[in-house]
């Protein structure tokens, strides 16, 4: 079995994995970061979104060994020194989550959205940009509000 090493949330990690291990399994099962979720097996739901080398990625679509040497940020790495990231805070303040299962992926996608498109995001843009993330609980209404507010707050 190959050993794979990468930086996750600023920490060097490495583990021996089967080649077929997905990045999401590596994060969850090998290094114990269970905030990244698995909601499907067809890369539709976006519960597994993390940032790899600064870009949002569905971590169920990449093998761990493909991420050798990469820098990965997961939902656990977003809050700095105990203070919530502005996007996390915005989801809280706008009731942008119910069961919370889609939330890590939503927040990681949202932060990426702001980094790509800037701090002024209108409803239409947010809704279209969320095409890779499914939420079954909120009806998206408050997720859209959260992301608009979080984008502002990230200035």
């Amino acid at each position, binding site marked *: 079995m190959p050993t794979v090493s990468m930086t996750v949330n600023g920490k060097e990690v490495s583990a021996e994995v089967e080649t077929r291990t997905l990045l999401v399994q590596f994060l*969850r099962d090998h290094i114990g*970061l269970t905030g990244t979720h698995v*909601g499907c*097996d067809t890369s539709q739901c976006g519960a597994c979104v993390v940032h790899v080398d600064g870009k949002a990625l569905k971590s169920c679509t990449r093998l761990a060994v493909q991420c050798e040497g990469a820098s990965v940020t997961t939902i656990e790495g977003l809050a700095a020194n105990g203070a919530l990231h502005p996007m996390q805070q915005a989801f809280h*303040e706008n009731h942008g989550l*119910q069961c919370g299962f889609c939330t890590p992926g939503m927040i990681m996608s949202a932060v990426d959205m702001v980094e790509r498109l800037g701090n002024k995001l209108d409803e239409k843009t947010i*809704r279209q940009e969320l095409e890779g993330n499914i939420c079954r609980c909120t009806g998206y209404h408050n*997720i859209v509000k959260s992301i608009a507010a979080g984008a502002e707050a990230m200035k």
Partner: protein
Amino acid sequence: MTEKGIGAAVLRREDRRFVTGKGQYVDDLNRAGQAHACFVRSAQAHAEIRKVDVSRAKSAPGVITVLTGEDVAADKLGSLPCGWGITNKDGTAMAEPGWPVLAQGRVRYVGEAIAMVIATTRQGARDAAELVEVDTSPLPVVVQATDAGKKGAPQLHEAAANNQCFDWEIGDRAATDAAIKASAKVVSLDIVNQRLVPNAMEPRAALAEFDTNSGLLTLHCACQAPHAMRLLLGAFVLNQAEHKFRVVAPDVGGGFGSKIPPYAEYAALCWAARRLGQPVKWTSSRSEAFLTDAHGRDHVTRAELGLDKDGRFTALRVSTVANLGAYLSAFGPLIPTYLYATLFAGQYTTPAIHAEVRAMFTNTTPVDAYRGAGRPEATYMLERLVETAARELGMDPAELRRRNFVAADAFPYQTPVALLYDSGDYAGALDKALELADVKGFAKRRAEAAKRGMARGIGYSTPIEATGAAPSAIAGQLGARAGLYESAEVRFNPTGSVTVFSGSHSHGQGHATTFAQIVASTLGVPYENVEVVEGDTARTQFGMGTYGSRSTSVGGSAIVKACDKIIAKGKKIAAHLLEASEGDIEFENGNFTVSGTDRTKNIAEIAFAAYVPHNYPLETLEPGLNEQAFFDPANFNFPYGAYICEVEVDPETGFTRIERFTAIDDVGNVINPLIVHGQVQGGVAQGIGQAMFEQGVYDESGQLLTGSLMDYCLPRADDVPSIDSGLTVTPCPFNPLGVKGCGEMGTIGSTPAVINAILDALKDYGVSDIQMPATPLRVWQAIRNGSAPQAAE
């Protein structure tokens, strides 16, 4: 102190762990030495099992054991239980064939578990599952409930002649027939309420452990009702006594009904853990979820509504065939009967109603509760009929409704189909919706859309539902095999903080926040000093769990009842400490005061005195301040609302967009408006999903064609609109909080509003009916097939 009490939009305290990735869902849990299970599932919808050869799988690397239906039989596991019995028209009991934990001799739907492979790793179990050889001979298949009763149809169960589970009725048939006959106008519709797949985003998961020393079996599973799970699995399947069986439902990622039943996998895991003395874990894949999570809806209905010459409803006659799938799921029989036909009065005074429902077994995934469970099917049928009647009579649909509403001064109102409505002002909600939706401005918007070549339509729905299940005595008469109260324990700790234990279960509903608000208001303690505990049979005394929008009205009321007992005991303690008589003690805002004086003790001081009883009436009163209560409601409660949807259809493509959606709900008193609106918004999106996107499709061989999120269309952010939601408040008189359920209204109310709006948009094209989901293809075809001449262009 009450700024975070009842009525305040308190931000949810559970959010922090979820937004930081620290939620603890079942798949996040691991135990030292745990094994992993993988289920070998039937690829055929109906087949005789000739042989299950596990020899190769057993010798694969890392495999601990492989168990099959024969092992289930040898270990005498019981059949998966059904929680509700229905009585046929002729007084006989429904057919109740068994459902083995692992298939025995025959499989009856694609996805049915045949064998369980247990290995040291998840991947190892999956690999070995591929090596299990199942030798079958295929049998003919039936998937539609309307085909299942036909002559010569393949038979699923010996215990269910003609595939029929039951043939049930409610209401006065003779009176209804006569009233229909005498009606000035009869409107009829043939409706398919299509099969849906619930798709909570967290797939089901379980981790079972067995302590060989104590004999304690512990099951962590993604479920909505841990005590009910323990009761049903322990007593009926596993023969595991409750004091040696703990069920924990930690963070659960959505349920919508699909996480109520005691599924085969949970029983199998418990059994395996007990056999092996080793923890065993299983997490469903999404593909497995599509095949094995209980599905929802799947009704075929013929409905007729009679009206007199003034547009007053005279009678409603409904005949439904319901698909129960291959086996009886826990509440399968309840959904198309008492949760369905009892809602047929809607918000209206229809004097005569009769409904008959035949429920059939087919070679499909078992059907059970999905958000709304029976009530969306009822409401869709009724609200479509009402709007069709308005269109055919050339009447304003709002006016037709108003003419038939139960009047605000007519409560309590007895319907002809068993329910006693509690309270309401239906016209008030409709008026508010008309205003918020700017219905006055619709004609202008329609004309403006027409200029752009778009067909704009408006549709209404005025739903009602029954929540807060249920008065146990009534439920028992109707076939419930359990009580339906809720329990709570309110425990003061010695230094004044409060721990609340509830039998409800939150899987997104925010109980940790809402219930703490209730306690803060009732006991006058700071919200921050209240902790809410749920989801663990070892911590909460008992509970029936969360479904049917019951948690606040039943579970919250149990908490209030326990708080009342705390106050009653507190008065005794205060009387002693203040040297007054108990009758002179008043309680308000957390303070016990001798009436008419300033002599007072706050509740924290009382709690301290109760736990450090140095100055305490020990001869007449026990120390401690910890009370338990069970609340069994005297009636259901009946939230209602008025929904208005506005769509634009592109007649060239059939593409439909919801431009505005207005939802006015009356859920009685509101504990936390933030959460109530959130529930409505999420519910509306699911209802829109049924109207426009979702459908579980089987081919004739019983293969689920919509078996993944690539084929089954869940609404995405860009498919649904923002929701304009508002509330009116008519308190429920049947519970101390005056609340009604809010979890399902959005789903129940929105579906007919959407379809009514689409049909309004298409009326100029000669389209009067469309089946769900109204996909662009269906809308386009409807326009092409419509009777309007321009449609042929």
